[in-house]
Protein backbone atom coordinates (compact mmCIF):
# COMPACT_ATOMS: atom_id res chain seq x y z
CA UNK A 1 0.00 0.00 0.00
CA UNK A 2 1.09 3.55 -0.71
CA UNK A 3 0.64 6.31 1.85
CA UNK A 4 0.95 9.88 0.61
CA UNK A 5 2.40 12.83 2.51
CA UNK A 6 1.90 16.43 1.48
CA UNK A 7 5.49 17.24 0.61
CA UNK A 8 5.72 20.98 0.17
CA UNK A 9 6.94 22.21 3.50
CA UNK A 10 7.42 21.22 7.13
CA UNK A 11 8.72 18.10 8.84
CA UNK A 12 7.99 15.85 5.87
CA UNK A 13 11.09 13.67 6.24
CA UNK A 14 10.36 12.97 9.91
CA UNK A 15 6.90 11.67 8.97
CA UNK A 16 8.35 9.57 6.16
CA UNK A 17 10.83 8.02 8.61
CA UNK A 18 8.09 7.27 11.16
CA UNK A 19 5.71 5.84 8.54
CA UNK A 20 8.43 3.62 7.10
CA UNK A 21 9.53 2.39 10.51
CA UNK A 22 5.96 1.76 11.67
CA UNK A 23 5.04 0.14 8.36
CA UNK A 24 8.12 -2.04 7.93
CA UNK A 25 6.32 -5.34 8.43
CA UNK A 26 3.29 -4.12 6.50
CA UNK A 27 5.03 -3.38 3.21
CA UNK A 28 4.04 0.29 3.30
CA UNK A 29 5.45 2.66 0.68
CA UNK A 30 5.47 6.42 1.16
CA UNK A 31 5.06 8.98 -1.60
CA UNK A 32 5.36 12.77 -1.45
CA UNK A 33 2.35 14.61 -2.84
CA UNK A 34 3.06 17.85 -4.68
CA UNK A 35 0.86 17.62 -7.77
CA UNK A 36 -2.64 16.23 -8.44
CA UNK A 37 -1.20 13.23 -10.33
CA UNK A 38 0.73 12.14 -7.24
CA UNK A 39 -2.60 11.29 -5.60
CA UNK A 40 -3.22 8.39 -8.01
CA UNK A 41 -3.29 5.08 -6.17
CA UNK A 42 -2.61 6.22 -2.62
CA UNK A 43 -4.52 4.61 0.25
CA UNK A 44 -4.12 7.34 2.84
CA UNK A 45 -2.55 10.75 3.27
CA UNK A 46 -0.62 12.62 5.96
CA UNK A 47 -0.56 16.41 6.25
CA UNK A 48 2.57 17.25 8.27
CA UNK A 49 3.55 19.94 10.72
CA UNK A 50 4.93 23.17 9.28
CA UNK A 51 3.44 26.58 8.61
CA UNK A 52 -0.26 26.20 7.92
CA UNK A 53 -0.40 29.47 5.92
CA UNK A 54 2.40 28.25 3.63
CA UNK A 55 1.04 24.73 3.16
CA UNK A 56 -2.48 26.14 2.61
CA UNK A 57 -1.23 28.47 -0.10
CA UNK A 58 0.72 25.78 -1.94
CA UNK A 59 -2.08 23.20 -1.70
CA UNK A 60 -4.28 25.72 -3.47
CA UNK A 61 -1.68 26.87 -6.00
CA UNK A 62 -1.14 23.28 -7.17
CA UNK A 63 -4.84 22.35 -6.91
CA UNK A 64 -4.51 19.59 -4.34
CA UNK A 65 -6.56 21.18 -1.60
CA UNK A 66 -9.96 20.26 -3.09
CA UNK A 67 -8.68 16.88 -4.20
CA UNK A 68 -7.67 15.87 -0.67
CA UNK A 69 -10.94 17.21 0.67
CA UNK A 70 -12.94 15.16 -1.83
CA UNK A 71 -10.98 11.91 -1.40
CA UNK A 72 -11.11 12.12 2.39
CA UNK A 73 -14.82 12.85 2.36
CA UNK A 74 -15.31 9.70 0.32
CA UNK A 75 -13.38 7.64 2.83
CA UNK A 76 -9.61 7.97 2.31
CA UNK A 77 -7.82 7.89 5.68
CA UNK A 78 -6.05 11.14 6.60
CA UNK A 79 -3.80 12.14 9.48
CA UNK A 80 -3.11 15.80 10.20
CA UNK A 81 -0.50 16.86 12.77
CA UNK A 82 -0.39 20.44 14.07
CA UNK A 83 -0.57 22.51 10.84
CA UNK A 84 -2.15 19.42 9.24
CA UNK A 85 -4.89 19.34 11.90
CA UNK A 86 -5.65 23.00 11.23
CA UNK A 87 -5.99 22.27 7.51
CA UNK A 88 -8.44 19.37 7.93
CA UNK A 89 -10.57 21.05 10.60
CA UNK A 90 -13.94 22.65 10.01
CA UNK A 91 -13.28 26.03 11.58
CA UNK A 92 -9.95 27.80 12.15
CA UNK A 93 -11.42 31.21 13.01
CA UNK A 94 -8.65 32.67 10.83
CA UNK A 95 -9.29 33.93 7.29
CA UNK A 96 -5.63 33.27 6.43
CA UNK A 97 -6.18 29.49 6.59
CA UNK A 98 -9.47 27.87 5.64
CA UNK A 99 -9.99 24.38 6.99
CA UNK A 100 -11.18 21.63 4.63
CA UNK A 101 -14.01 20.68 6.97
CA UNK A 102 -13.09 17.00 6.92
CA UNK A 103 -12.97 16.92 10.71
CA UNK A 104 -15.83 18.43 12.68
CA UNK A 105 -13.76 20.56 15.05
CA UNK A 106 -12.89 24.16 15.81
CA UNK A 107 -9.14 24.62 16.09
CA UNK A 108 -7.35 27.78 17.18
CA UNK A 109 -3.87 28.40 15.77
CA UNK A 110 -0.86 29.00 18.07
CA UNK A 111 -3.21 28.88 21.03
CA UNK A 112 -0.58 28.23 23.73
CA UNK A 113 1.42 31.28 22.65
CA UNK A 114 4.76 31.77 20.98
CA UNK A 115 7.74 29.39 20.77
CA UNK A 116 8.85 30.05 24.38
CA UNK A 117 5.53 28.51 25.44
CA UNK A 118 6.22 25.30 23.47
CA UNK A 119 6.48 22.29 25.76
CA UNK A 120 6.84 18.54 26.20
CA UNK A 121 3.61 17.09 27.54
CA UNK A 122 2.51 13.74 28.84
CA UNK A 123 -0.72 12.77 27.13
CA UNK A 124 -3.12 9.85 27.44
CA UNK A 125 -4.39 8.25 24.25
CA UNK A 126 -7.22 5.68 24.10
CA UNK A 127 -5.93 2.16 23.37
CA UNK A 128 -2.31 3.40 23.46
CA UNK A 129 -1.85 4.80 26.95
CA UNK A 130 0.61 7.45 28.06
CA UNK A 131 3.04 9.20 25.71
CA UNK A 132 5.42 12.15 26.05
CA UNK A 133 5.20 14.39 23.00
CA UNK A 134 6.27 17.87 21.86
CA UNK A 135 3.75 20.68 21.43
CA UNK A 136 5.37 23.33 19.21
CA UNK A 137 3.47 26.61 18.78
CA UNK A 138 0.61 24.18 18.94
CA UNK A 139 -3.04 24.78 18.11
CA UNK A 140 -5.85 24.01 20.57
CA UNK A 141 -9.00 22.05 19.86
CA UNK A 142 -11.64 24.37 21.28
CA UNK A 143 -14.67 22.49 20.07
CA UNK A 144 -15.15 18.89 18.90
CA UNK A 145 -17.66 16.05 18.98
CA UNK A 146 -17.27 14.40 22.39
CA UNK A 147 -17.11 10.93 20.84
CA UNK A 148 -14.23 11.92 18.56
CA UNK A 149 -11.83 12.80 21.40
CA UNK A 150 -9.28 10.00 21.79
CA UNK A 151 -6.34 11.81 23.34
CA UNK A 152 -6.03 14.31 26.18
CA UNK A 153 -3.39 16.47 27.84
CA UNK A 154 -4.82 16.92 31.31
CA UNK A 155 -8.41 17.87 30.54
CA UNK A 156 -7.69 19.31 27.10
CA UNK A 157 -8.51 17.32 23.97
CA UNK A 158 -5.35 17.03 21.80
CA UNK A 159 -6.20 14.14 19.50
CA UNK A 160 -9.37 13.37 17.56
CA UNK A 161 -10.54 10.44 15.53
CA UNK A 162 -13.75 10.27 13.57
CA UNK A 163 -14.02 7.39 11.13
CA UNK A 164 -11.20 7.71 8.59
CA UNK A 165 -9.92 11.01 9.98
CA UNK A 166 -7.19 11.45 12.60
CA UNK A 167 -6.07 14.84 13.88
CA UNK A 168 -3.49 15.79 16.52
CA UNK A 169 -2.18 19.07 17.89
CA UNK A 170 1.30 17.67 18.66
CA UNK A 171 4.22 16.00 16.84
CA UNK A 172 4.72 12.25 17.36
CA UNK A 173 6.96 12.31 14.26
CA UNK A 174 9.63 14.19 16.21
CA UNK A 175 9.92 11.32 18.71
CA UNK A 176 10.90 7.65 18.38
CA UNK A 177 7.43 6.60 19.50
CA UNK A 178 5.76 4.99 16.47
CA UNK A 179 2.45 4.04 18.07
CA UNK A 180 0.36 6.82 16.53
CA UNK A 181 1.75 6.22 13.06
CA UNK A 182 1.02 2.53 13.66
CA UNK A 183 -2.56 3.42 14.56
CA UNK A 184 -2.91 5.43 11.34
CA UNK A 185 -1.49 2.61 9.21
CA UNK A 186 -4.03 0.25 10.78
CA UNK A 187 -6.74 2.65 9.69
CA UNK A 188 -5.26 2.70 6.17
CA UNK A 189 -5.18 -1.09 6.00
CA UNK A 190 -8.62 -1.42 7.50
CA UNK A 191 -10.13 1.00 5.00
CA UNK A 192 -8.43 -0.45 1.92
CA UNK A 193 -9.15 2.76 0.00
CA UNK A 194 -7.41 3.45 -3.29
CA UNK A 195 -7.46 6.99 -4.60
CA UNK A 196 -8.15 7.57 -8.28
CA UNK A 197 -6.77 11.09 -8.03
CA UNK A 198 -9.72 12.50 -9.89
Amino acid at each position, binding site marked *: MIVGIVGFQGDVQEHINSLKAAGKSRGIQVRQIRRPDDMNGISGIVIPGG*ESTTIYKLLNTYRIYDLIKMECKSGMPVMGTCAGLILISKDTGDPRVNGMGILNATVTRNAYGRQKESFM*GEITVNSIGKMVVPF*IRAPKIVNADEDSIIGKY*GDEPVMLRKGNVLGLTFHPELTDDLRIHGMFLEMVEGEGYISTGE
Partner: protein
Amino acid sequence: MPIDLSSLKFGDELLKRGFAKMTKGGVIMDVTTAEQAKIAEKAGAVSVMALERVPADIRASGGVARMADPMKIREIMDAVSIPVMAKVRIGHLSEGYVLQELGVDMLDESEVLTPADPFFHLYKRELKVPVVCGARTLPEAVRRIFEGAAMIRTKGEAGTGNIIEAMRHIRMVNEGIAVLSEIGNDELKRAATQISRSYFNLRKAVSSDLLGNEDSLGDFRLYYGMSGEKLESEILKILKEIRRLKRLPVVNFAAGGVATPSDGALMMKMGLDGVFVGSGIFKSKDPARMASAVVEAVENYEDYKLIGEVSSNIEGMAGIDIDEIPENMKLQQRGW
Protein backbone atom coordinates in the same frame (compact mmCIF):
# COMPACT_ATOMS: atom_id res chain seq x y z
CA MET B 1 -1.91 17.65 35.74
CA PRO B 2 0.91 15.66 34.16
CA ILE B 3 4.39 15.81 35.63
CA ASP B 4 6.41 18.85 34.67
CA LEU B 5 8.58 17.75 31.79
CA SER B 6 9.61 21.19 30.66
CA SER B 7 12.67 21.02 32.88
CA LEU B 8 14.01 17.98 31.10
CA LYS B 9 16.99 18.77 28.94
CA PHE B 10 16.15 16.45 26.08
CA GLY B 11 12.82 18.20 25.87
CA ASP B 12 14.35 21.64 25.47
CA GLU B 13 16.62 20.46 22.70
CA LEU B 14 13.84 18.55 20.97
CA LEU B 15 11.55 21.59 21.11
CA LYS B 16 14.24 23.91 19.78
CA ARG B 17 15.35 21.62 16.97
CA GLY B 18 11.72 20.67 16.35
CA PHE B 19 10.76 24.30 15.83
CA ALA B 20 13.49 24.60 13.20
CA LYS B 21 12.22 21.44 11.48
CA MET B 22 8.82 23.06 11.01
CA THR B 23 10.46 25.66 8.75
CA LYS B 24 11.99 23.08 6.39
CA GLY B 25 11.29 23.54 2.70
CA GLY B 26 10.41 27.14 3.40
CA VAL B 27 11.55 30.70 2.83
CA ILE B 28 12.28 33.09 5.69
CA MET B 29 12.13 36.75 4.68
CA ASP B 30 13.68 39.91 6.15
CA VAL B 31 11.07 42.58 6.86
CA THR B 32 11.31 46.04 8.39
CA THR B 33 7.62 46.95 8.77
CA ALA B 34 4.31 45.31 9.71
CA GLU B 35 3.16 45.92 6.13
CA GLN B 36 6.13 44.03 4.68
CA ALA B 37 5.56 41.21 7.15
CA LYS B 38 2.00 40.82 5.88
CA ILE B 39 3.20 40.74 2.27
CA ALA B 40 5.69 38.02 3.22
CA GLU B 41 3.06 35.96 5.05
CA LYS B 42 0.64 36.23 2.15
CA ALA B 43 3.36 35.15 -0.28
CA GLY B 44 3.88 31.95 1.72
CA ALA B 45 6.93 32.77 3.87
CA VAL B 46 7.31 30.28 6.74
CA SER B 47 8.69 32.98 9.01
CA VAL B 48 9.90 36.58 8.94
CA MET B 49 13.04 38.16 10.32
CA ALA B 50 12.16 41.45 12.02
CA LEU B 51 14.77 44.17 11.37
CA GLU B 52 15.14 47.93 11.47
CA ARG B 53 17.10 47.90 8.24
CA VAL B 54 17.78 45.16 5.71
CA PRO B 55 21.44 44.06 5.41
CA ALA B 56 22.00 46.06 2.21
CA ASP B 57 21.14 49.25 4.13
CA ILE B 58 23.12 48.22 7.22
CA ARG B 59 26.09 47.67 4.93
CA ALA B 60 25.60 51.08 3.32
CA SER B 61 25.11 53.05 6.53
CA GLY B 62 27.99 51.66 8.62
CA GLY B 63 28.20 52.36 12.37
CA VAL B 64 27.36 49.85 15.10
CA ALA B 65 24.43 47.61 14.18
CA ARG B 66 22.52 46.36 17.22
CA MET B 67 19.39 44.36 17.96
CA ALA B 68 16.27 45.98 16.47
CA ASP B 69 14.02 48.30 18.48
CA PRO B 70 11.70 46.05 20.55
CA MET B 71 8.75 48.24 19.57
CA LYS B 72 9.45 47.52 15.91
CA ILE B 73 9.67 43.78 16.59
CA ARG B 74 6.43 43.83 18.56
CA GLU B 75 4.65 45.61 15.70
CA ILE B 76 5.75 42.87 13.34
CA MET B 77 4.80 40.08 15.78
CA ASP B 78 1.33 41.60 16.10
CA ALA B 79 0.88 41.83 12.33
CA VAL B 80 1.40 38.18 11.37
CA SER B 81 0.56 34.67 12.54
CA ILE B 82 3.77 33.04 11.28
CA PRO B 83 6.83 32.85 13.58
CA VAL B 84 8.96 35.96 13.96
CA MET B 85 12.73 35.84 14.24
CA ALA B 86 15.10 38.65 15.24
CA LYS B 87 18.83 39.17 15.12
CA VAL B 88 21.05 39.30 18.19
CA ARG B 89 24.69 40.45 18.17
CA ILE B 90 27.28 37.69 18.36
CA GLY B 91 27.82 36.95 22.06
CA HIS B 92 25.31 39.51 23.38
CA LEU B 93 23.47 37.35 25.91
CA SER B 94 21.44 40.27 27.29
CA GLU B 95 20.03 41.17 23.88
CA GLY B 96 19.23 37.46 23.55
CA TYR B 97 17.23 37.39 26.78
CA VAL B 98 15.45 40.65 25.89
CA LEU B 99 14.33 39.16 22.58
CA GLN B 100 13.32 35.90 24.24
CA GLU B 101 11.26 37.80 26.82
CA LEU B 102 9.64 39.82 24.04
CA GLY B 103 8.36 36.57 22.54
CA VAL B 104 10.59 36.29 19.47
CA ASP B 105 10.26 32.69 18.24
CA MET B 106 13.87 32.18 17.10
CA LEU B 107 17.02 34.28 17.45
CA ASP B 108 19.58 34.73 14.70
CA GLU B 109 23.04 35.23 16.21
CA SER B 110 24.12 37.22 13.23
CA GLU B 111 27.29 38.59 11.71
CA VAL B 112 25.13 41.24 10.04
CA LEU B 113 25.09 42.99 13.41
CA THR B 114 28.28 44.23 15.05
CA PRO B 115 29.69 41.48 17.31
CA ALA B 116 29.53 42.12 21.06
CA ASP B 117 31.98 39.50 22.36
CA PRO B 118 35.46 39.04 20.88
CA PHE B 119 35.96 35.64 22.57
CA PHE B 120 32.74 33.66 22.68
CA HIS B 121 29.55 33.21 20.73
CA LEU B 122 26.33 32.94 22.74
CA TYR B 123 26.01 29.97 25.06
CA LYS B 124 22.78 29.04 23.34
CA ARG B 125 21.95 26.06 25.56
CA GLU B 126 21.04 28.57 28.25
CA LEU B 127 18.25 30.18 26.20
CA LYS B 128 14.79 28.67 26.03
CA VAL B 129 14.15 29.86 22.49
CA PRO B 130 16.02 28.28 19.57
CA VAL B 131 18.92 30.11 17.94
CA VAL B 132 20.15 29.95 14.33
CA CYS B 133 23.81 30.71 13.59
CA GLY B 134 25.83 31.35 10.46
CA ALA B 135 28.71 29.09 9.41
CA ARG B 136 31.24 29.22 6.58
CA THR B 137 32.76 25.81 7.21
CA LEU B 138 32.05 22.53 8.98
CA PRO B 139 34.17 23.44 12.05
CA GLU B 140 32.20 26.68 12.48
CA ALA B 141 28.93 24.77 12.19
CA VAL B 142 30.11 22.17 14.72
CA ARG B 143 31.12 24.85 17.23
CA ARG B 144 27.72 26.52 16.94
CA ILE B 145 25.90 23.20 17.37
CA PHE B 146 28.07 22.43 20.40
CA GLU B 147 27.06 25.80 21.89
CA GLY B 148 23.42 24.89 21.37
CA ALA B 149 22.40 26.24 17.95
CA ALA B 150 19.12 24.60 16.85
CA MET B 151 19.70 25.54 13.22
CA ILE B 152 22.63 26.48 10.99
CA ARG B 153 22.69 28.72 7.94
CA THR B 154 25.43 29.66 5.51
CA LYS B 155 26.82 33.11 6.20
CA GLY B 156 27.12 33.97 2.56
CA GLU B 157 27.72 37.70 2.16
CA ALA B 158 24.62 39.51 3.37
CA GLY B 159 23.23 42.51 1.55
CA THR B 160 25.09 41.84 -1.70
CA GLY B 161 22.47 39.98 -3.74
CA ASN B 162 25.42 37.82 -4.81
CA ILE B 163 25.11 34.07 -4.29
CA ILE B 164 28.80 33.13 -4.63
CA GLU B 165 29.65 33.27 -0.92
CA ALA B 166 26.63 31.22 0.17
CA MET B 167 27.67 28.73 -2.50
CA ARG B 168 31.23 28.71 -1.17
CA HIS B 169 30.02 28.08 2.37
CA ILE B 170 27.65 25.23 1.59
CA ARG B 171 30.32 23.59 -0.57
CA MET B 172 32.81 23.91 2.30
CA VAL B 173 30.35 22.39 4.78
CA ASN B 174 29.28 19.58 2.43
CA GLU B 175 32.89 18.75 1.60
CA GLY B 176 33.72 18.69 5.30
CA ILE B 177 30.93 16.18 5.87
CA ALA B 178 32.19 14.06 2.97
CA VAL B 179 35.71 14.04 4.44
CA LEU B 180 34.40 12.88 7.83
CA SER B 181 33.13 9.67 6.28
CA GLU B 182 36.54 8.97 4.77
CA ILE B 183 38.76 9.40 7.81
CA GLY B 184 39.50 7.05 10.71
CA ASN B 185 38.73 7.53 14.39
CA ASP B 186 42.20 8.89 15.20
CA GLU B 187 41.81 11.60 12.62
CA LEU B 188 38.31 12.33 13.83
CA LYS B 189 39.77 12.92 17.30
CA ARG B 190 42.37 15.22 15.80
CA ALA B 191 39.58 17.17 14.12
CA ALA B 192 37.79 17.50 17.47
CA THR B 193 40.96 18.92 19.04
CA GLN B 194 41.40 21.33 16.15
CA ILE B 195 37.78 22.46 16.25
CA SER B 196 37.85 23.13 20.01
CA ARG B 197 40.95 25.36 19.80
CA SER B 198 39.16 28.68 19.55
CA TYR B 199 37.61 28.15 23.00
CA PHE B 200 41.15 28.39 24.47
CA ASN B 201 41.77 31.91 23.10
CA LEU B 202 40.74 33.86 26.17
CA ARG B 203 42.74 31.65 28.56
CA LYS B 204 45.75 31.80 26.28
CA ALA B 205 45.63 35.58 26.02
CA VAL B 206 45.46 35.94 29.80
CA SER B 207 48.17 33.33 30.36
CA SER B 208 50.47 35.05 27.93
CA ASP B 209 49.76 38.47 29.44
CA LEU B 210 50.20 37.27 33.03
CA LEU B 211 52.97 34.72 32.78
CA GLY B 212 54.59 35.23 29.44
CA ASN B 213 53.53 31.90 28.03
CA GLU B 214 50.26 30.64 26.70
CA ASP B 215 49.91 27.32 28.53
CA SER B 216 50.32 28.00 32.23
CA LEU B 217 46.82 28.47 33.48
CA GLY B 218 45.65 24.91 33.30
CA ASP B 219 42.71 23.51 31.54
CA PHE B 220 39.75 24.02 33.81
CA ARG B 221 36.54 25.91 33.11
CA LEU B 222 37.53 27.30 29.73
CA TYR B 223 33.99 27.82 28.53
CA TYR B 224 30.90 27.90 30.76
CA GLY B 225 32.47 25.58 33.31
CA MET B 226 33.73 23.11 30.73
CA SER B 227 37.31 21.86 30.61
CA GLY B 228 39.21 21.44 27.35
CA GLU B 229 38.77 17.70 27.70
CA LYS B 230 35.03 18.01 28.08
CA LEU B 231 34.86 20.41 25.09
CA GLU B 232 36.75 17.99 22.89
CA SER B 233 34.70 14.98 23.89
CA GLU B 234 31.42 16.79 23.20
CA ILE B 235 32.68 18.02 19.85
CA LEU B 236 33.84 14.51 18.99
CA LYS B 237 30.34 13.25 19.73
CA ILE B 238 28.88 15.80 17.30
CA LEU B 239 31.40 14.83 14.62
CA LYS B 240 30.46 11.15 15.02
CA GLU B 241 26.79 12.02 14.69
CA ILE B 242 27.45 14.01 11.52
CA ARG B 243 29.46 11.12 10.10
CA ARG B 244 26.60 8.72 10.83
CA LEU B 245 23.85 11.00 9.48
CA LYS B 246 25.93 12.27 6.53
CA ARG B 247 24.49 15.70 7.23
CA LEU B 248 24.32 18.22 10.07
CA PRO B 249 22.15 17.02 12.98
CA VAL B 250 20.17 20.28 12.80
CA VAL B 251 18.24 22.04 10.04
CA ASN B 252 20.57 23.80 7.61
CA PHE B 253 19.45 26.84 5.57
CA ALA B 254 21.05 29.08 2.95
CA ALA B 255 21.52 32.77 3.67
CA GLY B 256 23.54 35.75 2.54
CA GLY B 257 23.09 36.77 -1.09
CA VAL B 258 19.98 34.87 -2.15
CA ALA B 259 18.27 37.37 -4.48
CA THR B 260 16.25 35.53 -7.14
CA PRO B 261 13.98 32.49 -7.50
CA SER B 262 16.81 30.62 -9.25
CA ASP B 263 19.18 31.43 -6.37
CA GLY B 264 16.66 29.81 -4.01
CA ALA B 265 16.36 26.77 -6.25
CA LEU B 266 20.15 26.44 -6.49
CA MET B 267 20.48 26.40 -2.72
CA MET B 268 17.88 23.63 -2.44
CA LYS B 269 19.69 21.69 -5.16
CA MET B 270 22.84 21.90 -3.00
CA GLY B 271 20.97 19.99 -0.30
CA LEU B 272 19.96 22.83 1.99
CA ASP B 273 16.67 22.61 3.90
CA GLY B 274 15.37 26.07 3.02
CA VAL B 275 16.47 29.66 2.44
CA PHE B 276 16.64 33.04 4.11
CA VAL B 277 16.12 35.97 1.77
CA GLY B 278 17.39 39.21 3.23
CA SER B 279 17.51 42.27 1.02
CA GLY B 280 16.43 40.31 -2.07
CA ILE B 281 12.68 40.68 -1.58
CA PHE B 282 12.11 44.25 -0.47
CA LYS B 283 14.98 45.69 -2.52
CA SER B 284 13.37 44.29 -5.68
CA LYS B 285 10.93 46.19 -7.91
CA ASP B 286 7.80 44.22 -7.01
CA PRO B 287 8.30 42.64 -3.55
CA ALA B 288 4.97 40.77 -3.46
CA ARG B 289 5.68 39.03 -6.76
CA MET B 290 9.33 38.39 -5.92
CA ALA B 291 8.32 36.89 -2.56
CA SER B 292 5.82 34.48 -4.16
CA ALA B 293 8.25 33.60 -6.92
CA VAL B 294 11.04 32.67 -4.48
CA VAL B 295 8.63 30.54 -2.43
CA GLU B 296 7.46 28.66 -5.51
CA ALA B 297 10.99 28.16 -6.81
CA VAL B 298 12.17 26.78 -3.46
CA GLU B 299 9.22 24.38 -3.23
CA ASN B 300 9.74 23.20 -6.80
CA TYR B 301 13.47 23.58 -7.17
CA GLU B 302 13.81 21.12 -10.01
CA ASP B 303 10.77 22.29 -11.98
CA TYR B 304 12.76 24.55 -14.28
CA LYS B 305 9.84 25.42 -16.51
CA LEU B 306 7.94 26.76 -13.52
CA ILE B 307 10.98 28.64 -12.19
CA GLY B 308 11.32 30.26 -15.62
CA GLU B 309 7.70 31.32 -15.51
CA VAL B 310 7.79 32.81 -12.03
CA SER B 311 11.09 34.56 -12.81
CA SER B 312 9.72 36.30 -15.88
CA ASN B 313 9.69 40.06 -15.78
CA ILE B 314 10.69 40.46 -12.14
CA GLU B 315 13.68 42.63 -11.53
CA GLY B 316 16.02 41.55 -8.75
CA MET B 317 18.17 43.88 -6.64
CA ALA B 318 21.28 45.29 -8.31
CA GLY B 319 23.83 43.51 -6.14
CA ILE B 320 27.57 43.88 -5.51
CA ASP B 321 30.56 42.03 -6.91
CA ILE B 322 32.32 40.35 -3.97
CA ASP B 323 35.75 41.36 -5.29
CA GLU B 324 34.77 45.00 -4.92
CA ILE B 325 34.29 44.60 -1.16
CA PRO B 326 37.47 45.11 0.87
CA GLU B 327 38.29 42.10 3.05
CA ASN B 328 37.67 43.99 6.30
CA MET B 329 34.22 45.06 5.08
CA LYS B 330 33.01 41.51 4.57
CA LEU B 331 30.38 40.65 7.16
CA GLN B 332 31.23 36.95 6.95
CA GLN B 333 34.59 37.63 8.62
CA ARG B 334 32.73 38.28 11.85
CA GLY B 335 32.54 35.25 14.13
CA TRP B 336 34.89 32.28 14.03
